[in-house]
């Protein structure tokens, strides 16, 4: 436990009871005991989850880029000719739609350019991403079930659609299975406002495995710094005195694990006070690197800072960094029903910074063992609701992956002629999640815990890593 954000109290009787979090403690030996010894990471909670424990995993960290609201694959990475444009097509079977319904296909107004050695076409909204396309494995045949934002975000974040229990997000599973590599920072960090709190949730794994949201600015974590006017001398002296005043009580209650864990929590909090501001301080970053991320330019500054911070967290051993874009606590900024031009500023905000991130990781040799994933909760339909925008489309959309032994410059799968359904090599979001944990060296079938005697998994039976895009 010594390297984790969290300890738990034995004494609270936490080893029994059936709250959704407490089941953790019912496994016989408990993870305080024998289970820990066999793990490669000191704090991993699932024994035997590593695929090949003797080899290092392909990815040490994941940067999970989540575009809130549903990016149109048709206007970005999955070009279609406009032969259907203007025609009313049958939208029966779309989502929950059981009514007979015709919808007008709208033309795609983008031009696509083939980039790199691979010659993969990318839309004029992503010219910079075009420049790094040889690093990307583009999956054009993603699909999920849910048609509306929050259910789809839940499905993407947790791999599950039901809410009978509160499922845990992908990042918290990674945190749970692998623990933290950094003694001073949390293992699962979120940057940028998400669509839904479920994307940060530890669910039945517990709040201790949830994302720690880093806020922009010099104080990334609430209450990280003492109130103004506290000097470091003052702070150190106070902590010393605190230890002295606590000594008697700690001796008397040494058998309570919560007390030992609390000592460590204060130590970690104190270390975080020093290391978190250092992680978010870009003072040592050369101007050229900042420019690479678009920092300083009006449209790209905010997202560029988020991505530079993501890289710095990778360097500091944070395992799962979720970066949300255009989350507004509602449907998400990418939800362009009215007019596809709504995508244009969002593409401008993200294109250069993401390309900069890939280049920066590459030039530092970090791309080798950092997996970058770009996705949305779903794509957009070929048709509109009689506007110049597009509707939600869970039946076919695009995600891409890069780094950590992912085959760059590849395209996997295809949607149909209009870009509605994934028809070739369909990849369900559980498959995408299996691919991510595979790069982290985890066997997706082992990511399982029991609640009330029932096993619950991140990835259900039948899904597996997308080997076709992996080395």
């Amino acid at each position, binding site marked *: 436990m010594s390297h984790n954000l*969290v300890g*738990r109290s034995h*004494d*609270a*009787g936490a080893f*029994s*009871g*059936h*709250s959704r*979090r407490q089941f953790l403690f019912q496994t016989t030996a408990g993870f305080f005991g024998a289970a820990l010894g066999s793990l490669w990471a000191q704090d991993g909670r699932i024994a035997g989850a590593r695929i090949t424990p003797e080899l290092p995993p392909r990815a040490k960290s994941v940067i999970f880029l989540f575009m809130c609201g549903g990016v149109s694959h048709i206007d970005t990475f999955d070009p279609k000719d406009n032969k259907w444009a203007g025609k*009313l097509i049958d939208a029966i079977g*779309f989502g*929950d*739609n*059981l*009514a*007979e319904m*015709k919808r*007008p296909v709208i033309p795609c107004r983008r031009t696509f350019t083939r980039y790199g050695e691979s010659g993969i076409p990318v839309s004029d909204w992503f010219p910079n991403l075009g420049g790094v396309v040889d690093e990307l494995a583009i999956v054009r045949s993603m699909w999920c079930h849910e048609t509306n*934002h*929050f*259910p789809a975000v839940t499905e993407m974040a947790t791999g*599950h*659609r*039901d*809410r*009978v229990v*509160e499922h845990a997000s992908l990042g918290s599973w990674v945190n749970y299975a692998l623990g933290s590599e950094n003694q001073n920072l949390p293992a699962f960090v979120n940057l940028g406002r998400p669509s*839904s*709190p479920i994307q940060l949730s530890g669910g039945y794994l*517990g*709040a*201790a495995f949830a994302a720690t949201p880093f806020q922009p600015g010099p104080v990334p*974590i*609430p*209450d990280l710094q003492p*109130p103004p006017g506290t000097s470091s001398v003052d702070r150190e*002296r106070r902590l010393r*005195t605190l230890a002295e*005043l606590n000594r008697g*009580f*700690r001796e*008397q*209650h*040494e*058998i309570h694990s*919560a*007390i030992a864990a*609390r000592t460590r*929590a204060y130590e*970690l*909090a104190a270390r975080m006070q020093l290391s978190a501001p250092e992680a978010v301080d870009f003072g040592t970053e050369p101007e050229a690197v900042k420019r690479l991320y678009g920092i300083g330019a009006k449209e790209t500054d905010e997202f560029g800072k988020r991505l530079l911070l993501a890289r710095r967290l990778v360097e500091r051993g944070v395992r799962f960094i979720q970066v949300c874009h255009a989350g507004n*606590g509602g*449907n998400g900024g990418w939800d362009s029903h009215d007019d596809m031009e709504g995508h244009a500023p969002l593409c401008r905000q993200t294109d250069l910074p993401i390309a900069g991130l890939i280049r920066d990781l590459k030039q530092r040799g970090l791309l080798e063992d950092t997996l970058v994933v770009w996705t949305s909760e779903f794509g957009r339909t070929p048709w509109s609701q*009689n506007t110049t925008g597009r*509707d*939600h489309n869970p039946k076919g959309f695009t995600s891409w992956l890069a780094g950590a032994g992912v085959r760059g410059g590849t395209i996997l799968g295809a949607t149909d002629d209009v870009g509605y359904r994934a028809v070739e090599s369909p990849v369900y979001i559980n498959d995408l999640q299996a691919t991510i944990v595979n790069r982290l060296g985890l066997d997706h079938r082992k990511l399982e815990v029991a609640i*009330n005697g*029932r096993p619950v998994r991140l990835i259900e*039976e039948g899904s597996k890593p997308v080997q076709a895009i992996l080395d």
Partner: protein
Amino acid sequence: MDQRCPPRPHCSARRSAISWVRIVLPWLAFSLALVESAAAAREIPRVADLWSLQPVVRSPIPAGFTDSTNAVDAFIAEACHKRGLSALPAADPLVWLRRVSLDLTGLPPTPAEQDQFLRDTSATGREQVVERLLASEQYGVRYGRHWLDVLRYADVDNDMPAGPGIHLWRDWIITALNHDLPYDAFVRAQISGNRAARRRIISPEGHLSTVGPRPEDLFALGFLARGAVSRENADHQLAFSAVETLSTAFLGMTIGCARCHDHFFDPLKQADFYSLKAVFDPLVLRPVELATSAERFAQGRAVEEHDARVQEVVTAMREYIAPYHTRLYEERLSALPADAQAAIRKPAAQRTAAEQKVADDYHPILRIDPSKIKAVMPPERIPRYDEFLKQIGALKAPPPLPVFWTVADDPKRAAEKSYVLTTGDPARPKLSQEVTPGFPFITSQPEFRDGRRETLGDWLTSPTNSLFARVVVNRIWQWHFGTGLHPSANDFGALGGKPSHPRLLDWLAAEFVAQKYSMKWLHRLIVTSETYRRASASHREQDAANHRIDPDNTYLWRFPLNRLDAESLRDSLLQIAGALDLTAGGKSIEASTNTLVPQRRTAYVRRGYQASREVMSPYLQTFDVEDGRTVCPRRTQTVTAPQALFLMNSQLVDNVAGQLAERWRQTGTNDLAARMTLAFRTVLGRPPSESEQATARAYLQDETGTEKNLAWLILNLDEFLYVP
């Protein structure tokens, strides 16, 4: 939600099929995978075998193991003796005072209360403290919060229709506990809306009278109304939720498993689940307006005036945009298939049902938003249009009248048959498996003379129901000691383990019934026991034998250390600052860090869940508060760095430290020892030791050693967060 979601289907049955399959199928998938292994690995016990379904046996109180006359001590002493454990002596009286005050009211004892306790050297000093605490309104706030965790209280849960007014259910629970409403009546009222056990009385003169519900018991039905989390399918959600919550909360059985299949581990058939659900099948959700007649008159006028003002602007605006609107509408309409156009062009009143459906289907296409109007409007006309839109937006409708959502039996639904549902899907009844209302674990089904829920209440609360009293005395025990006599408060089934003190559990259950289900009686018995008085501090070497024999303290040879929960921590801080408002009841509030004005108790801070936004404050989440979506028998007690950061650096703790230092100054004494004593007693409920005084003195001698910093130090002590 999204204004532009794909259109909703018009066939509600199909719709419900989809959503239910979504919810249930994933569970079914792995449940089926379990069937083989489960069946192979274990025999499902029969009703006759499961310990918790055996009748409660009241054993004689063991004699000769303790001098205490408290039955709790006798059973505990016997168990310790049998295992060779030597119980620790009593804790310091002030430690006990702090323990029992926080336990019963969630608030630390004030220095005045400490003085009063220490002055009273009579034999009944502790009893008087317990009586004072149990009589305090704050007892209900504290134990009400425990019950609300178990009964799944939430202010918000997705689109829970019962959200407005749900706090009245919370207030009903708090009031019921404060009046020591017998537990059987407490449960009956929440299931049927009527607390009375005898609903028909024949007088000696031969007159028959019925005992109707007390007016406030309407609010007890918030328990059932809370079960629906969206308007769609609300009635089915109510029934499912009722079965799952009440079986877990009141019976300690995870009957939910039997929703999709026979229970793998406990003697519960799928048909049992649906028989129990049939009790609730006639229920529908109903709003009850709580306004006075005067408020209703006033509301009528206010709404009328508001509508008139809106209409005035809308009419003018429609006229203003008419040419553009008509043009766009015609363009769109003419793009539609001819038959659709014909249907839509007919006046609504003349359309056939099929034509109306077509019109509804194309409605989203024909909706024209302001942005589209502006796109075709001459630019110079746009500002005036914007002005119209702004005017309409600024006209705020009068707030709705206060409402409470309750449930009622719908005669039409009551006349319908109930079936086992395939995978819990209301659209897929197994017509070969009709079920009638009934209860699990019993052979002869009851007659439903008095109504289904009333009869359920009678069966549930009957002294012959072996689970009813066992489950509640165990919960109450757990709230006092952190762990129940049976370790799994929500699972008295085959997987829940066995009680550590089965005879004590049964004795308490039997005596609880004999004491007319008085929860305050049980609290009194427990907190006045020697077991409850024991020290928690223990040295590994000194108590080596105890640690070897019972390292987890299952047999209570010492008192367990408990962390303050989120509510007690914030309430304690506010009380220390002199900024706690003890008003009970009312709508839920947002937590504030301002301590310059008194703040309400944390039990009243909003909680719940919504996919689109955070409902609960980060503070509540950091300190392990559940959101009410599952039956929470006991909060997890994590120890995390964010908790440490809250105590070290938060605005609230900073304010409280400042106010505490200010209170010392106001005592007017320059005597450091006296000031420190006040601080320690206010925060920790005890005076400082000599070595603590020396440490503090040394700290204050340096220039960084301000009194506010000293207050900070005391607030950050382990002993403040962990109650010994």
